[in-house]
């Protein structure tokens, strides 16, 4: 500690402590009152319903003074200098309001404000994709915004919150495993070889995208583990999020340059507000139950034996059949006594979440601080999760022209998972296959052997960023963001001594670390070109350092049954990955503002990337867009509502991987000795793939903003698409080599409709509908052969990807054998990604201000191959039960089996499992009930939310399982449709009580 003492002998810690104490004192109590100041207070209400509105930003224009309204609508701004001021109130979805107010020395000005809802929000400030910040009216591209306060069912993960929240956004993943992440895709697949997952920013700081890896046993076929891949987005506590902005294509992401063509999701966490501390506390308790995913009487594919019954004390108890859920399974009657019906509710879980936050502050420092604890037990016997989240956001305004925003989030998550997925020790694999499994035994007590496999991981994440806004002179702004995101996953994957698969024991310890450094500067200068034309010139630069480190150590063969470490193993194997990629670029942009209703934006981004080939150089990305607020024209009658017409063109890119450009050999090793094998052939000309996109659309609102529509048509083309060109095996380099040779296209429409269909004092109803279509095509493969990728095929003239497989030509015949179409060659089945997604929402307000809400999602136009039972290994598949002579023991087929099912149920066939994959899923139904009456007066707001999720679906053809179950690669994969042996997600019920005081 000595080296931290200064010359006077005072510890630096104590000086910092004193300073911090002072800051907090000021922050929590408000700044000392200046003799020449007064205060402004009042209530903000909805203009139509007169209901109080919370979370309204009320501030004094030109001063760094403001406040957020509370649930009661009340706001308070302290220390306002004496004089006349303009007070402005803003909230997403409402038309901003400005009022003039006179503040007297020591006086209190009472200003009550009414806000009219504004569907278009033309004067709202948006940040993502703009140089600095811009009003919506200026922006030529579409931008979706999710206001978390409007999501009624209080989801506990950010990816769930986003599901179905915006047109063009597809979030897939529905495994019933603790911590399992989801795939995120915007406007289809714009790339074959590189990721299609969007970039993630939190308050301007770049976050790790994609997903944490599944930690498995190295050196084994398919690995061994649980195949759980946590989404970084789910590291963020949804309660800390204020809003989310989503830009989906190259027309909007140009200023993010290389890496951004898959879109950008930016999360804005809550900020402090002036005034006394406002506390919010929430407790959430939940349960759930397994949904039937089997068929023909095998409702849970025999997994009911292993499902937890956390609430009722039954469920899996180490193979004690008297306590297992054995409903409908008469085979085990008489074993260990009373058996049948021992569990009436298979798969019940227990979820607990506790949140507390406080926001407030003084004149120059506002704060938002939160903490959360989550403790979940899932339905699989070993699945549980414990998570802590902390967030601290501080806004410091030392001068009128300078503000500093410091946001820091920390997350610590521990989870344990049941071995799952397609691997030898996967619980579902062994259970689904019954007596054809690796034990040749379907007895759950035998299968339970795999549950000795202990798989645990701890995730830590620290994201911190400082943003300085400095406006030295009028019309000049500067914003500098420096951010750091550190994510760490430490996993232990233990097969204990005596474990059936590896009796001598096996331990994997894996440490995965990802560090992202963000430097982002943008400046702007606004100046008049003519009396009618304003020009805003922006310039800036961005550098993102992306550093990956992963160390995997495997130790096997332990001396005994003691708790092992790697050091006690007799056989070792280590793997290490270290990759650092820097992307840096700069840009210029100019916005021409003509009469505040015509806007033309032109910009250019120039990028370098360390993964580009030596011969490549820099890449430029241009953009141009236009916006016309036609409803501001004099000829536009007021009765026609508001409308903005917009169009945008832009380019952005996607960089190759860190090693793709160079010729390398793989240091594979040979039993302890060095060994090299040909790896990557290399390509010095390798550059990014370039996506260019044109968007055309409009935003309109009518009938006093009760009906709003946002429509966008987009067409995008990816040229120089990075495709894996396979080398000639006979020439040694057998690994695929990336080349910029392909061309892909995507086009579609996106429609967002919101209708306020009923508005009365006690009743109200809002209908929402988002619709998106996506039609992708492989325009050119640049002369290379069609190939498999994205869990499908990449074929010229076909969607990205397309199903391409053998199909039975005589499905309904009963001939005793089957014929394939096209002489047994593969035929095109159809797109594997949904071509249209429709997400309806409904909010109904009933007397007592109770809000009933529902949201669902329909996906269609695609095909899926669904067969998670290994027919080729002669496993008795419940799908084939109607066709077996004796389904209980044998796979011999009845003579009257239709030829399609004969193919499907015969081991040498087992191929044509393609189904029209259209389905609808009711994602959430909730009731939000004000319960202020049950609390003392000092509780300003109390709300009880009851929500059920994932309770109903409709499938056009899919006969079983769940179309959102992911492959072993789960959220790290880009393809959908490949499934693994997992248990689909349960239905859940959660009750949340939230109080504000």
């Amino acid at each position: 500690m000595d080296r931290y003492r200064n010359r006077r002998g005072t510890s630096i810690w104590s000086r910092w402590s004193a300073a911090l104490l002072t800051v907090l004192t000021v922050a929590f109590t408000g700044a000392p009152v200046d003799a020449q100041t007064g205060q402004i207070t009042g209530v903000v209400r909805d203009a139509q319903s007169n209901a109080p509105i919370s979370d309204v930003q009320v501030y004094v224009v030109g001063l760094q003074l403001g406040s957020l309204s509370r649930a009661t609508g009340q706001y308070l701004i302290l220390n306002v200098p004496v004089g006349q001021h303009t007070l402005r109130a803003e909230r997403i979805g409402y038309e901003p309001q400005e009022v003039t107010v006179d503040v007297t020395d020591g006086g209190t000005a009472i200003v009550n404000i009414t806000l009219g809802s504004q569907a278009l929000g033309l004067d709202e400030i948006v940040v993502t994709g703009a140089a600095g910040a811009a009003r919506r009216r200026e922006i030529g591209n579409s931008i979706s915004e999710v206001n978390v306060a409007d999501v009624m069912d209080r989801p506990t993960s950010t990816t769930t919150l986003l599901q179905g929240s915006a047109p063009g956004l597809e979030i897939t993943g529905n495994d019933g495993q603790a911590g399992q992440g989801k795939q995120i895709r915007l406007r289809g697949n714009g790339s074959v070889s590189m990721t299609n997952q969007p970039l993630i920013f939190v308050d301007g700081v770049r976050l790790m995208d994609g997903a944490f890896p599944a930690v498995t046993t190295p050196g084994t076929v398919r690995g061994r583990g649980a195949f759980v891949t946590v989404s970084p987005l789910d590291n963020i506590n949804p309660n800390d999020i204020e809003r989310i902005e989503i830009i989906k294509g190259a027309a909007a992401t140009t200023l993010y340059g290389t890496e951004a063509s898959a879109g950008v999701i930016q999360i804005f966490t809550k900020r402090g507000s002036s005034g006394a501390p406002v506390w919010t506390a929430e407790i959430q308790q939940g349960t759930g139950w397994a949904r039937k995913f089997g068929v023909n009487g095998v409702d849970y594919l025999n997994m009911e034996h292993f499902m937890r019954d956390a609430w009722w004390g039954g469920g899996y108890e180490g193979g004690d059949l008297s306590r297992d859920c054995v409903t409908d399974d008469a085979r085990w009657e008489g074993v260990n006594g009373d058996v049948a019906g021992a569990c009436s509710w298979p798969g019940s879980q227990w979820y607990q979440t506790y949140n507390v936050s406080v926001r407030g502050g003084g004149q120059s420092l506002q704060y938002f601080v939160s903490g959360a604890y989550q403790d979940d037990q899932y339905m699989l016997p070993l699945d549980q999760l414990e998570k802590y989240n902390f967030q601290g956001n501080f806004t410091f305004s030392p001068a009128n022209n300078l503000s500093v925003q410091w946001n820091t989030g920390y997350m610590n998550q521990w989870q344990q998972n049941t071995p799952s997925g397609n691997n030898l020790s996967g619980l579902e694999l062994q259970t689904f296959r019954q007596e054809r499994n690796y034990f040749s035994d379907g007895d759950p007590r035998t299968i339970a052997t795999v549950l000795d496999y202990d798989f645990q991981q701890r995730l830590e994440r620290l994201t911190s960023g400082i943003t300085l806004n400095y406006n030295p002179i009028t019309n000049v702004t500067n914003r500098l963001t420096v951010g750091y995101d550190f994510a760490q996953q430490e996993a232990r994957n233990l097969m204990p001594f005596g474990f059936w698969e590896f009796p001598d024991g096996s331990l994997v310890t894996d440490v995965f670390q990802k560090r992202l450094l963000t430097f982002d500067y943008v400046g702007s200068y606004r100046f008049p070109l003519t009396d009618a034309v304003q020009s805003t010139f922006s310039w800036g630069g961005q550098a993102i350092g992306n550093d990956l480190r992963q160390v995997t150590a495997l130790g096997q063969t332990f001396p005994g049954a003691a708790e092992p470490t790697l050091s006690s193993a007799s056989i070792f194997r280590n793997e290490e990955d270290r990759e650092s990629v820097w992307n840096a670029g700069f840009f210029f942009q100019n916005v021409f503002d003509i009469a505040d209703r015509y806007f033309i934006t032109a910009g250019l981004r120039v990028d370098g990337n360390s993964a580009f080939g030596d011969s490549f150089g820099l890449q430029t990305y241009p953009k141009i867009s236009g916006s016309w607020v036609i409803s501001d024209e004099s000829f536009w009658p007021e009765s026609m509502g508001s409308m903005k017409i917009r169009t945008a063109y832009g380019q952005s890119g996607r960089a190759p991987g860190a090693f793709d450009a160079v010729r390398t050999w793989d240091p594979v090793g040979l039993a302890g000795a060095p060994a090299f094998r040909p790896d990557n052939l290399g390509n010095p000309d390798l550059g990014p793939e370039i996506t260019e996109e044109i968007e055309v659309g409009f935003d309109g609102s009518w009938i006093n903003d009760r009906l709003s529509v946002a429509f966008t048509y987009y067409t995008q083309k990816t040229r120089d698409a990075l495709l894996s060109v396979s080398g000639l095996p006979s020439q040694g380099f057998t690994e695929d080599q990336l080349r910029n040779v392909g061309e892909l296209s995507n086009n579609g429409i996106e429609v967002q409709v919101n209708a306020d269909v009923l508005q009365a004092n006690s009743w109200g109803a809002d209908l929402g509908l988002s619709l998106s279509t996506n039609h992708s095509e492989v325009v050119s493969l640049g002369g290379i052969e069609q190939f498999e990728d994205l869990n499908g095929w990449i074929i010229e003239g076909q969607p990205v990807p397309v199903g391409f497989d053998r199909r039975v030509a005589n499905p309904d015949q009963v001939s005793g054998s089957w014929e394939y179409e096209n002489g047994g060659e593969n035929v095109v089945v159809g797109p594997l990604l949904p071509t249209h997604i429709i997400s309806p929402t409904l909010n109904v307000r009933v007397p007592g201000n109770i809000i009933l809400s529902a949201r669902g999602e329909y996906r269609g136009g695609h095909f899926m191959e669904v067969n998670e039972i290994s027919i080729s290994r002669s496993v008795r598949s419940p799908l084939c039960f109607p066709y077996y002579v004796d389904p209980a023991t044998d796979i011999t087929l009845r003579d009257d089996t239709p030829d399609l099912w004969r193919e499907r149920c015969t081991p040498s066939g087992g191929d044509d499992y393609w189904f029209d994959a259209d389905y609808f899923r009711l994602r959430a139904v909730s009731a939000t009930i004000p319960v202020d009456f049950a609390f003392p007066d000092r509780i300003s707001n109390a709300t009880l939310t009851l929500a059920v999720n994932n309770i109903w679906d409709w499938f056009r053809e899919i006969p079983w399982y769940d179309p959102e179950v992911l492959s072993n690669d789960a959220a790290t994969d880009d393809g959908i449709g490949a499934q693994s042996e997992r248990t689909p997600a349960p239905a859940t019920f959660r009750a949340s009580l939230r109080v504000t005081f």
Partner: protein
Amino acid sequence: MNTIMRRAMRLTTLVAAGFVSSACDVTNPGPVLDEFLTLEDAQQGLINGAIRAISELMGDAAYTHATLAREIFPGGQTGAWGHNVTTQGGHILPGSYGAEFDDAQQARFIAETAIQRFAEAEASDQNLYQAYLWAGISYRLMGELWCDAVVGSTDPEDPEPGLYEVGTQTYFQRAVDNFSAALTFASTDEEEDAAYAGRAQARVALGDWANAASDAAEVADDFVFAILHDESESDLYNDLYEATSGQFRSYTVQFTWFEDYYSTGDPAVVDEVTNTGDPRVPWVIDPDNDVATASLQGFPGGAVPYKPQRKYSSRDDDIRLASGWEMRLVEAEAILAQGQPFAGAMTLINQVRTRNVSDVDGATLAPWTAADATEAWTALKRERGIELWLEGRRAFDLRRWDTGGVPGEDDQPAWEDTSHPGHTPLFLDNPRSYCYDIPDSERDRNPNVPPAIGGGG
């Protein structure tokens, strides 16, 4: 915008471009850059790369070719450590098994790269010997395991795609050339034995019996040369062991010729003729598992009785590439092939055989007898099948004997016969293969190689 502003912008742009370029100058550790291979320190790593590729190849090929040659009977497992249904039926789908082709071609490519770079670097004789030896082994294996050849330049940097060749004669000829070159750098008896043995094997395939016998005669009886397998990672496993390691029970010795030849499995039943207890073809009964994993399509009852082999008893049991005893059999076969008196061949055959004692009674194995050349051929084929059991050699032997019209019994169980206890429709539905086909990964991209039509030999 005034002049100063324009100049400021230009300067800013230049500075920014410079920053962008310099910020992206990153060198990552990990994969080995190509230029590193020119260093002396890298030479052994390059040779080891070829060895590893062959280890991976042999792990798969010995297993798959055992299935084709009916040295083992499939248990029904199709995924991990199993074969697809058609391979279980003894058929190689045209254009399949690309990974094995990659391994073989990489082994050849690495070895030829080593030859080229070692020559440029004036490497040691030891390293040059290794490079030529493994190039020879690569070519010999490609010749035996594949039906047809893709013949490219021996210059690894030559970008021209290889030419298609019916049969694999060029592979064997190149094997002979490389083994001959290796001999010029060999410095120990073991090194010479390995090169002579490899050249003898290649010359057998070429029908060059006189030179094959002369090479074989150079090799000591007790010489053994094996490819390394290792339990540190699954790619290096001895697959034949792993597929019978307990949790994987992918095949069985039941119904093969070797089942009864070794033992009835029942100590109460002693058959002096067939139950030899020959220690070269051991199998056991697994007290914990009486059936194989999964089940075989069409097999009565589904699950197949499980009798695992025990020639290999761990993941890191090496598979022999050549041995002195094999060379004695090469000499014996050369006698028969050249029409010389068969008694000389029988002497050599029984010399190989009678060095073994029975696992059943501890007695020396009884020698084979032959009344004529045909019976001598049967003894040669049988002894070769026993000596090289599960070493990936049998399918090529059956192929070349069939092509050459060699007399004598092949000891092939008739699983196509509906009355045979190992019968399933799989063996009728799938025509037998004896070698790998050139995979689609090569056929689709190499304009000189025609599309797969029948394949599978």
